[in-house]
């Protein structure tokens, strides 16, 4: 509040006061701060008071300098005058007197009361005002302004405000200057003994106060900061023992935000202030200014560090302070700070990082208060209701006990309370963890309270302290028994024999029992705590829990808002613990899940092991089977050392029990962390397409005990295409031992490609589990998947379909048709076992298998190894006996042959007796019409179907062609026509098989029109039998026949001649045709049965006998020249008698054809020539021709149009072209010029 004194010279104030007051507070002002920089301040409060006001009068002049800040900032001289003389004589001297005190800022407000209608008055007022200006305003400074009561005001108020601001600024500057000088002077003397902090404080605070009044909060804050620094220096000066303070009632409640808590006079002590009160006082002012500056964040941040540092000072003075004063103070301080700063804080006004930081500080304050609150609660005896979680343990167990000079003892009247407490302690049973997990409970106390309390009792000697430790070994229910230290254990083993009632008021030296300690603490705290809220919170367990929950929630929420997720989530866990205790399992499970997710996600297993059982229990209570099971799995998959084996077995038993009994519906469960699997090291299993197989997989079980899996199946992922799903392989039940197991899974026939391991799934009772992890030891799932890839080693390779076996005909050369022959089928496995293979044989048309004979199977040396691609090598190989030569006779059943075992992986030949039938007789060919080989005739097919593979899943189908043929091809020709009409007929036998044929006999059955010459019986003329015909060679037999007619007795006319050949064959089935199967079995050569071969021969009587011949007689030897006559001559001759021909007229028509452009024919071109019909008659036809052009030209041709062309031999006769020379030079052509 600024004051402006008003010197009411002309008694005007009552009339204008309201108008002046209306202008307050000043909306905007520009002031100079401590560093003389202009600062704009707003809403400057002020008050106009008369100089006669009592507030100004009561000052002693000597105080003025110190309390200068209370003095008016300016003097407004309110004056009016309408008469110039009056002004000169009365007013002017008076004003001069008033303003002569130059210390003070002043200015004159000339009030003009002249009515606007009154011109004279206005004029005179103006005159007087001009005069006033002349007298009091200087060039430097305008000190006058005129207020027209009846006139327009706006201008005046602006003028007035600017004047006032000028004054304020000047005054402020001067005063600041003054205070600073004073302070500097004092500061220089600081280390002198006479120096007094109080004086310094007064100056500093006055200055700060002044700044604050001027709304220069920054500067005020700086003054207080400096003051605090200075104070801390003086306080910490060695050798000065001052009273700390804080022993008065109500001091326990922190006053760090309440500047008016105590008047300064109560704080002051000698030449300084008591630390306890004064530091809080300073902080209160600082925070007040910070709030005014709208910086609640800073209040919180300064507050937090203030609480920490102040708490330290409290610690050092703890022996003088009431019991637990420090804790109470910290709690209340934190709460006050939280309330104040959060109520002042408006979200969204500050930068995000500040906001984050603010919430973090709030969280810190909450958790600091929470820790101290828990400590008090523990002392009072609510230790059992505090969760022994890592966070509580960490904060409490490292926090030392309060160290009062004397630990409070039980008041005499509190015996009933002690009894009650003791009963309560007896009732509470220590909580057992789920699954019977036995863990050392985390301590909530730095050392055992019992010992600490008794030690601090002044009257207790050390000897007594030991006495209390050698009681029985029964553990106290306060939980401290769980502390591991043996010394501590002794400490807790507080004997209950002491607890006979009525023993309380015994000797004061007797050590206190735990219940007594609690009651004593309670009473002592009641003394200490003045804050009702706090005391209420400690009055009962329920209230404690309420407050505890409130604080925990507050801390958690604020940490969450500040993105300190770890702090937040951990405190969520504490909320969960409370919820859990109250049966609010749903909420508890949610919070616990968050905690577990955090620890699990970051892999802090030891911490996880602490929380996870709680979550599991919640899920069990909630009947969340899926969650419960997965938690069991997580428990099991934690590091083995974190739980005892017994506990782990309990988890497993629980899992198995649920899986087999309680689950109604199948529950899916991810056990990746527990069951991991990988392929067997080494090369991947290789399979051919379509083959089933067994895949061995190594499965690591993390279960502590044997685990029976009802079924296991494994998915394989194809590497070639991620989209194409996976192949599942199955195995029936499997027993998993802890550790490494090998499971063999049977593979369904997969598609070709290479596969990696996918997912392991299986079932335990109603539990469907799946596991994704490939191998143990790797890091947990990492989001950094660029840094390393999961090793995806192919575990299975299925090859593309390829030939696994080859079936082929053993021989390519033809076999004998119409005889039983061995057809060989080569079976060649290609790196694949044919174990148990079955061959289906189906013969094509015209071919049958002789079932009366056995089928033979023999091995042959591995073709594939030696010369895999040349089946010919078979022949050569076969000749050499191999050591492991096998021969087995098989029978055909329903067209199937079962392979013997030995044939599973070696090449073999199956010999099948077959009989190709052909009804038609083979036809021979004559030399005139050469034989056209026709392979199709002798081709027969055998359809083969081989089933093989482990489960006969592979088939191989092939139709092989077997070529059959007659032993010979017969061709015939007439070698010579003898004179007497006999013909020598040569029958040529060409061997068509790869075997030596021996002809023993041959005879010819002739057709009509031919008879055997002589008395032949159709045998060849020369008996050269036996005649051996080598493969592919020819042999010939000559028959002597002649044309003639025989009358057959039967009258049937034979149209074809047939040659019969009795022959034998000697050949090997491995190379081609061979003796028929039946013959082989019949035995020796003696009983050899010759084979008979019949072939049709077509003999034809000559039908085309030309009866005429035309011959072109040679041309004259001279050159033919153009224009030269050439006689062309043809001779026509009858070759035989023409009795029966129609053309047998006497004349034969002839015709000479020539190109008229080339030839000129002189003579008859066409005419009849007389020709006798007798054989040998002849005639020459001569025609004269003149060649017309030179060159090669066709000569004229002679044609006999009436005679059939076939009757003419050598037609057309004559040369094709003749050469015509150009005409010889002739002078007659020369024309003289």
């Amino acid at each position: 509040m600024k004051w402006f004194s008003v010197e009411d010279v002309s008694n005007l104030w009552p009339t204008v006061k309201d108008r002046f007051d209306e202008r307050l507070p000043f909306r905007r002002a520009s002031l100079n701060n401590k560093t003389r920089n202009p600062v704009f301040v707003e809403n400057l409060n002020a008050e106009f008071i008369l100089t006669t006001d009592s507030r100004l009068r009561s000052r002693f002049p000597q105080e003025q300098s110190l309390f200068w800040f209370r003095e008016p900032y300016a003097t407004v001289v309110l004056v009016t005058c309408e008469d110039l003389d009056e002004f000169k004589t009365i007013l002017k001297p008076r004003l001069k007197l008033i303003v002569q005190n130059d210390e003070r800022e002043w200015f004159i407000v000339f009030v003009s009361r002249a009515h606007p209608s009154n011109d004279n008055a206005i004029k005179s007022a103006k005159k007087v005002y001009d005069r006033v200006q002349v007298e009091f305003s200087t060039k430097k400074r305008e000190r006058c302004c005129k207020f027209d009561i009846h006139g327009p005001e706006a201008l005046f108020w602006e003028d007035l405000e600017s004047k006032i601001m000028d004054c304020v600024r000047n005054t402020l500057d001067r005063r600041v200057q003054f205070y600073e000088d004073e302070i500097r002077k004092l500061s220089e003397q600081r280390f002198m003994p006479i120096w007094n902090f109080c004086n310094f404080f007064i100056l500093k605070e006055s200055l700060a106060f002044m700044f604050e009044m001027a709304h220069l909060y920054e500067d005020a804050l700086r003054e207080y900061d400096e003051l605090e620094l200075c104070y801390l220096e003086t306080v910490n000066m060695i050798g000065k023992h001052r009273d700390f303070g804080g022993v008065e009632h109500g001091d326990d409640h922190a006053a760090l935000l309440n500047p008016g808590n105590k008047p300064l006079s109560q704080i002051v002590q000698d030449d300084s202030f008591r630390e306890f009160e004064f530091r809080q006082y300073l902080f209160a002012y600082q925070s007040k200014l910070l709030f005014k500056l709208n910086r609640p964040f800073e209040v919180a941040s300064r507050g937090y560090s203030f609480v920490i540092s102040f708490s330290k000072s409290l610690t050092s003075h703890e022996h003088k302070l009431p019991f637990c004063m420090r804790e109470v103070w910290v709690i209340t301080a934190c709460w006050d700070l939280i309330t104040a700063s959060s109520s002042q804080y408006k979200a969204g006004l500050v930068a995000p990082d500040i906001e984050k930081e603010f919430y973090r500080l709030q969280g810190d304050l909450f958790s600091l208060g929470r820790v101290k609150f828990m400590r008090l609660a523990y002392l009072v005896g609510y230790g059992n209701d505090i969760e022994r979680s890592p966070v509580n343990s960490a904060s409490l167990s490292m926090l030392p006990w309060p160290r009062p000079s004397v630990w409070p003892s039980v008041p005499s009247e509190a015996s009933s309370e002690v009894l009650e407490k003791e009963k309560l302690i007896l009732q509470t049973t220590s909580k057992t963890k789920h699954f019977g997990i036995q863990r050392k409970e985390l301590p909530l106390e730095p050392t055992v309270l019992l010992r600490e309390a008794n030690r601090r009792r002044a009257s207790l000697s050390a000897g007594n302290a030991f006495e209390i430790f050698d009681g029985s070994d029964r553990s106290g229910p306060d939980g401290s028994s769980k502390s591991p230290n043996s010394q501590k254990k002794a400490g807790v083993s507080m004997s209950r024999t002491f607890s006979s009632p009525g023993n309380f008021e015994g000797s004061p030296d007797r050590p206190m029992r735990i219940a007594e300690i609690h009651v004593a603490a309670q009473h002592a705290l009641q003394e200490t705590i003045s804050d009702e809220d706090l005391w209420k919170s400690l009055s009962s367990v329920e209230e404690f829990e309420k407050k505890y929950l409130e604080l925990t929630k507050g801390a958690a929420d604020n940490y969450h808002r500040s993105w300190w997720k770890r702090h937040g989530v951990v405190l969520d866990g504490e909320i969960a613990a409370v919820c859990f205790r109250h049966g609010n399992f749903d909420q508890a499970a949610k919070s616990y899940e968050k905690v577990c997710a955090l620890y699990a996600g970051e892999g802090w297993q030891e911490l996880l092991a602490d929380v996870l059982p709680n979550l599991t229990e919640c899920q069990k209570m909630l009947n969340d089977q899926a969650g419960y099971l997965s938690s069991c799995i997580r428990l099991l998959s934690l590091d083995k050392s974190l739980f005892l084996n017994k506990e782990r077995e309990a988890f497993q038993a629980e899992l198995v029990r649920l899986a087999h009994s309680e689950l109604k519906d199948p529950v899916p469960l991810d056990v990746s962390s527990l069951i991991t699997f990988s392929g067997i090291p080494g090369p991947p299993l290789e399979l051919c397409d379509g083959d089933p197989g067994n895949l061995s997989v190594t499965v690591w079980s993390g279960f502590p005990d044997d685990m029976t899996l009802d079924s296991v199946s494994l998915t394989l992922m194809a590497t070639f295409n991620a989209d194409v799903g996976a192949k599942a392989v199955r195995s029936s039940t499997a027993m998993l031992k802890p550790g490494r197991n090998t499971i063999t899974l049977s593979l369904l026939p997969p598609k070709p490609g290479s596969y990696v391991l996918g997912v392991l799934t299986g079932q335990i009772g109603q539990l469907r589990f799946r596991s994704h992890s490939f191998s143990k030891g790797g890091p947990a799932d990492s989001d950094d998947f660029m840094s390393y890839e999961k090793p995806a080693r192919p575990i299975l390779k299925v090859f593309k379909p390829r030939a696994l076996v080859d079936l082929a005909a053993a021989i390519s050369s033809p076999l004998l048709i119409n005889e039983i022959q061995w057809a060989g089928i080569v079976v060649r496995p290609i790196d694949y076992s044919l174990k148990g293979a079955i061959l289906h044989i189906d013969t094509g048309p015209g071919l049958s298998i002789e079932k009366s004979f056995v089928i033979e199977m023999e091995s042959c040396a591995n073709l594939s190894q030696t010369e895999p691609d040349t089946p010919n090598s078979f022949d050569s190989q076969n000749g050499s006996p191999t050591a492991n030569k096998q021969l087995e006779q098989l029978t055909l059943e329903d067209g199937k042959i079962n392979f013997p075992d030995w044939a599973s992986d070696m090449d073999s030949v199956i010999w099948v007796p077959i009989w190709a039938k052909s009804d038609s007789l083979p036809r021979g060919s004559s030399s005139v019409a050469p034989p056209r080989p026709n392979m199709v005739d002798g081709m027969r097919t055998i359809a083969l179907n081989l089933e093989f593979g482990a489960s006969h899943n592979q088939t191989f189908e092939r139709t092989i062609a077997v070529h059959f043929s007659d032993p010979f091809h017969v061709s015939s020709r007439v070698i010579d026509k003898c004179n007497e009409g006999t013909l020598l007929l040569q029958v040529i036998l060409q061997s068509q098989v790869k075997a030596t044929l021996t002809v023993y006999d041959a005879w010819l059955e002739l057709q009509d029109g031919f008879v055997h010459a002589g008395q032949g019986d159709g045998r060849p003329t020369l008996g050269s039998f036996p005649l051996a015909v080598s493969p592919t060679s020819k042999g010939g037999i000559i028959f002597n026949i002649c044309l003639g007619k025989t009358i057959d007795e039967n009258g049937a006319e034979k149209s074809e001649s047939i040659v019969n050949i009795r022959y034998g064959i000697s050949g090997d089935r491995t190379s081609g045709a061979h003796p028929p199967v039946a013959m082989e079995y019949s035995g020796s050569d003696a009983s050899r049965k010759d084979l008979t071969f019949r072939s049709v021969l077509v003999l034809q009587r000559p039908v085309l006998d030309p009866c005429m011949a035309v011959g072109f007689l040679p041309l004259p030897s001279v050159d033919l020249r153009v224009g030269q006559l050439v006689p062309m001559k043809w001779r026509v001759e009858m070759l035989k008698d023409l009795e029966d021909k129609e053309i047998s007229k006497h004349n034969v028509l002839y015709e000479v054809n020539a190109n008229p452009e080339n030839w000129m024919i002189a003579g008859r071109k066409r005419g009849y020539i007389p020709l006798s019909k007798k054989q040998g008659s002849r005639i020459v036809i001569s025609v004269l021709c003149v060649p017309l052009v030179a060159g090669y030209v066709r000569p004229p041709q002679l044609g006999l149009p009436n005679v059939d062309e076939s009757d003419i031999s050598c037609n057309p006769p004559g040369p094709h072209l003749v050469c015509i020379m150009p005409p010889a030079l002739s002078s007659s052509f020369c024309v003289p010029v």
Partner: protein
Amino acid sequence: MATTASFIIVSRNDIPIYEAEVGSATKREDAAQLHQFVLHAALDIVQDLAWTTSAMFLKNIDRFNDLVVSVYVTADKSVRCITLKAFSIRYFLDIFKHTRLMLLHDSRNDDGIKSFFQEVHELYIKVLLNPLYLPGARIASSHFDTKVRALARKYL
């Protein structure tokens, strides 16, 4: 030598990959868990602090009564690949996440701690250089363990 010192290496994914109690004090049974808890909670602070400074050694970032947490933040870099499945786009982001060496200690020997961190960092880099070590996996090398303990004896 410090009476209490708990050393831990936290990988980029906040997973502890190496833990050692290197203090001379007889180990309290529950201490390991508490130390873990304190160090874990301190990760919150490291995560804030690491961005505000370029220094690798952050001393006394958190205080737990008598115990103090100091952290050494390594400067390794990892490329994170983000796949937007909806758009079939892959983004490669350079994300600096650090491996942190954290020490919970009660001694005030800042220089010693700093040297300790530097030498352990060197050891850690040697471990990283091992081609058979997957970054982010637990460090199981007994050699490393021995060396770290020796360094702790020397500096802490």
